[in-house]
Each structure stands twice: as C-alpha cells, then as structure tokens.
C-alpha cells in the first residue's frame, strides 16, 4: 500500500503473535505449526487466551470456552498459559525495541507495541531497510517475525499491522489514510454496543460510509463522546504515545523490630527478601548483575555491601548464593533495624541466559556459567581442567598441564 511520498509516516505498530503462544513455542518448538489452544487444562472451565493460526483456521477464537474450542478443533492441543514465561517474552520484546529507540509505547493488546520512527530514520534513511532491521531484531529475540504497520497515527498503524503479514509491512501514507480506512467494516473502530447498533440501523456498515456523514451531523446524532470514534474513522487519532521505560532497579526492604543481631535470623530474612526481588525480576523477565545490601544498624553507621554477579541472575537461589557469603562477612557492629536488597544493573535475562525460555532452563545455570561465577568469586585457579601430554618430559609435573576451566 505504498504510494507517492508527501510526508513520512512516523508511527510503526509492531504486532507479534500472543506472548503466551510465543512462550509456548519457545519452550516446546515442536508445537509450532500445529493447532494449539492456550487457556487451561481441558477439564477446566476456563476460556481461550491465545490460539495459533492453525487452530484459528478451525474456528477457535480468543474468549471462547475451552469446551467449545475443543469441539471446533478436536485435534488441537490445549495447554495452560505459562504466566511467568509470557511476562518474560513481553518484557524481552519491549526491552529489545527500547534498545532500538526510546520512543516506544506498549499497546494494551498483548504482543503489540508502537515505535516513533523519526529518530530511527536518521540511522536508516531508507524505510524498507529500517522495517527490515526492526523485523530482524524482533525475530532474533522471540523467534517469530512480526507484522508491521506504518502510518501517521496509532490507530491507523494498528489497523495496518493487523492486515500486514510477517516480512510484508503495510505502509499508509498520511494523504491516503482516509481512503485506506474507508474499506474496513465499522467493527474496526472501538465502538460500544449501542453505537454499533445505531450505526447498523442507519445502514452504516463500513468506515467509508461513516466518513460520508458530516462531523456536525454525527455529533448531533450521537453526541460529543462519539466524536472520538468519528475522528478515528477519518484518520485523526489524538492519543499520545505513552513512553515505555524499562525498570531501573528493584528493591525489597524489611524493618526489623526488635533489632536483629542473630546471623541465622538475618540470613532467613535476607532469603525472604531475595525471593521478593526474584518474583519481581521473573515477572518482568529481567536479571540483575548487582545487588546492594543495605544494613541499617542501631546507633551505628549504615552498612552497604555490594554483590556482583557474572551474568544476570533471576532466581532467589542464585541471588541468595551471592548474598549469603557477603552477609556473613559483613562487619556488623550493632543490631540491625532494617535490611534492604536493591537489585540494580537490570538486563533482560535472555542476554546471558539464552536458555531462559527453554524448558528446565532459566532456573538452572549452565556449567560454564557456574564455573565463570566461581572463578569471578575465588579467582581463576579455583576450577581447573587437566590435560595429559604423552609426548612431554618424563617428569609427571611436565606431563600434566593444568589450566583454568
């Protein structure tokens, strides 16, 4: 839908499959290409949350009851939604886009986001290359190519993205907006039931038909509130892009009343705080590379201890493994009134944990990561590998080569 150039459209809507579907595919790649319904177990009385294209082709849609969905697609797999993995996918998606440009807004629909392209055009003056770069970046992270729609407003770009296919973006030039929208049914607009009913009674079934009504006549008939819908129909979207910002730090704190001077109790509390921090990190798909332990002492200066990790860690066990030795070594001279854990240097967990979204991983670091962490903590020689050199001198010390793992 690319036409003559009058003014560059500047909002790109990026639409991916539902994050729960992406999470399910990342966990079990064999499910890709098969009819898949997410929402719960078959025997549960819950609704469909996400559905693959193959199941959708059989008539299953979001919001339908699982029982009904099974009747429509008897061969489809019905699985529960992994909420944590879904959150991680969504966070990874947004964080990746944020690294492209800070002009990013998260759409209310899952798997959808908006980018302002103004700054990106400085880096990629050619629009086709820019859109290809966005597609490639997203595909590397979530394993699926997104559908892109580019237009001068959020609404039109959303409509364009919903009619685009992966690898074939739809670009709507500003002067073509009205004509582009005219072909779509009025259901494309965010109508309430009453307004839809009125419009249908009047025989207005497409946006193009609605565009033929004058603004004043529409206001007289449907009131001031409905004018927002009319504006959308003629391509005017007054909503502003609400910038999405990645979290900078996650903090958990616990006042200690009465003050604690027992190391065991302190470890117990620190463990509980690590679990709180871990829950927040997991929910946002993040890992932390540094945790600051702040210990408020009774009638003594505040003590701060820094724990650093070789890679972004997420789970409470990993966090506490770093925190515990520092806590035991801290020079605490008075009972503690408060303990605070502050997780900083937050990064998407997938950067150093590519297996985060793979089953049985994400909660288990690889042996290479474990060795790297031990070597960072205790020095390189702590973990070694041995090699026997049969061609070396007869002295055993010469025949055996020790090197850091």
């Amino acid at each position, binding site marked *: 839908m690319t036409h003559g150039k009058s003014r560059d459209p500047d909002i790109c809507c990026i639409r991916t499959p539902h994050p729960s579907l992406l999470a399910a595919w990342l966990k079990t790649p064999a499910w890709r290409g098969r009819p898949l319904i997410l929402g719960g177990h078959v025997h549960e009385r819950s609704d469909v949350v996400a559905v693959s294209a193959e199941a959708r082709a059989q008539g299953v849609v979001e919001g339908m009851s699982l029982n009904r969905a099974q009747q429509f697609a008897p061969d489809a797999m019905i699985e529960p939604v992994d909420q944590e993995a879904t959150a991680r996918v969504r966070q990874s998606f947004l964080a990746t886009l944020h690294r492209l440009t800070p002009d990013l807004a998260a759409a209310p629909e899952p798997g959808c986001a908006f980018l302002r392209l103004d700054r990106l055009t400085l880096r990629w003056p050619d629009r086709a290359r820019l859109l290809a770069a966005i597609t490639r970046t997203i595909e590397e992270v979530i394993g699926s190519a997104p559908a892109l729609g580019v237009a001068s407003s959020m609404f039109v770009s959303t409509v364009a993205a919903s009619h685009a296919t992966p690898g074939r973006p739809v670009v709507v030039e500003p002067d073509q907006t009205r004509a582009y929208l005219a072909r779509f049914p009025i259901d494309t607009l965010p109508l309430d039931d009453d307004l839809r009913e009125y419009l249908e009674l009047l025989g207005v079934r497409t946006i193009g038909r609605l565009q033929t009504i004058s603004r004043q006549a529409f206001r007289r008939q449907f009131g001031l509130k409905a004018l927002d819908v009319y504006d959308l129909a003629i391509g005017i979207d007054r909503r502003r892009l609400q910038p999405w910002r990645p979290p900078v730090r996650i903090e958990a704190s616990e006042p200690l009343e009465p003050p604690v001077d027992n190391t065991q109790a302190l470890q117990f509390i620190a463990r509980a705080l690590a679990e709180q921090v871990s829950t927040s990190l997991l929910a946002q798909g993040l890992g932390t590379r540094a945790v600051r332990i702040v210990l408020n002492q009774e009638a003594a200066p505040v003590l701060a201890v820094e724990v650093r990790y070789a890679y972004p860690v997420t789970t409470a066990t990993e966090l506490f493994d770093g925190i515990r030795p520092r806590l035991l070594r801290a020079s605490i001279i008075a009972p503690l009134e408060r303990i605070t854990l502050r997780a900083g240097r937050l990064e998407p967990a997938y950067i150093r944990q590519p297996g985060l979204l793979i089953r049985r991983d994400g909660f288990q670091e690889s042996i290479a990561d474990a060795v790297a962490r*031990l070597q960072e903590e205790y020095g390189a020689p702590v973990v070694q590998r041995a090699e026997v050199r049969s061609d070396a001198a007869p002295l055993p010390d010469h025949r055996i080569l020790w090197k850091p793992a």
Partner: protein
Amino acid sequence: MPDRLQQAITVLQTRFGSAAPRPAAPPCAARPSGIAEIDALTGIGGWPVGRLSLLAGPRGSGKRTLAQRSLAAASREGPVAYVDFPSRLDPEFLSRIDARLDRLLVVRPKSLREGMASIRVLARAGVDLIGIDLPRARAAGLDAELPHLLHRIAEADCTLLLIHDADADDAIRYYASLILSFQRRAWVFSRGGDLEGLEVDAAVVKNRLAPPGRTERWVVPYPHGKSRDPDIP
C-alpha cells in the same frame, strides 16, 4: 523379593492398610559406580543419587583409587567434578582408566567454605557426580556446612562421594547415607615383581537405603597391571 513374600505383603496391606509391613529403605535412584563389587555392596546398584556417600579407610586402603574409578565411569556419562583439597588427584591415572578429562572439573579450593560453595554451585549447574577429597585436617567446620550442602545436592540430583580418613567425624557419619569402610589386605604383585594392584576388604558400615553389614573382598587393579578377576576392567 520372592513372589510368595510379595503376595503375603499385598494381603497384609489389603487387610491392615498403613499398619502392614513396608520397605524400611525409601526408594532411591542409584548411579552405577563402575565397579561391580561396589554396586553389589551398596544394595541399590551404585552410589545413591542426591545423597552423600562416605569412603572411609586408612591411607593406602584404596578408597581414593576406587573413587577415581567411579569418577572415570561417571565422566563417560556426563560432567563430573573433583574437589581436591590436598591436591592429590592424578589425571594420568584417570586417563589410563579411560576417564573423559574434558568432562572433569578439578576444584582446588583454599578453604572449606570455598570448597562447599563450589560444590553447591556445580551441583545446581548439572554436574552428575562430585568427588570430595577432604583430609581430616581440613574438615574443621564441615558439620555446619553439610546440611546446606546436602539440601542442595538433593535438589540437584547430584551424587556426592566424600573420601575421608578412617575415623570420620560424627557429623559426617550422621549426614552420610552410605558409609563404606576399606582395609588393605595385601599388595598384589606379578611374578616379575611389578605391583599389579591391591586386595581390599570393604564393609558397609552404614546404609540408609539397604541392609548394612555386607562385606566384600576383591582386587583393585592398577591400570598398568592385570586383574585376577576377569570382570574387573
């Protein structure tokens, strides 16, 4: 278990429910040790997974040699680690018994705490078997570290072999699920006078998973010698 005994137990379970006889030992997965005699001694077919096994005995009783043979066998299946407090590990010996040295991580910690932290981290990362060579002189404070360590290895399904002096501390004896005590009976020489191996007596001092008290005697061959027993590799 004989069929008739099993039938009798089933009848009792039907009649008396939870009051019926049940196995004294909980079911536990085992990792083959690579030595048929040890697999038979333990009663479960190898070293228990997710638990601590203690190899005790005086110097020269063969406990380290046997642990290294188990390590070699496990390295052929997956990643293994050896926490070498006294720096006595001989990679050449391991390579002669077909250990996969590329799958072996050797940890040489400066302190007990450092060693225990390394074991916890490696166990959780997926190392299958960890051998710990811990002399009595370096074991001070082990009783405080063991509960935390055992919890972690149970979670990670890692097998822990502790090589320790004969008179193991009470704490280790308490926490170990399996204790094998070794005694050297004789050195075995070839007719030409070369050392071929050693004859050991092994006894199960403690076993939480099968009846204890079993004993066995066999020759542990050295890699360059030949075993009297054709079953021993």
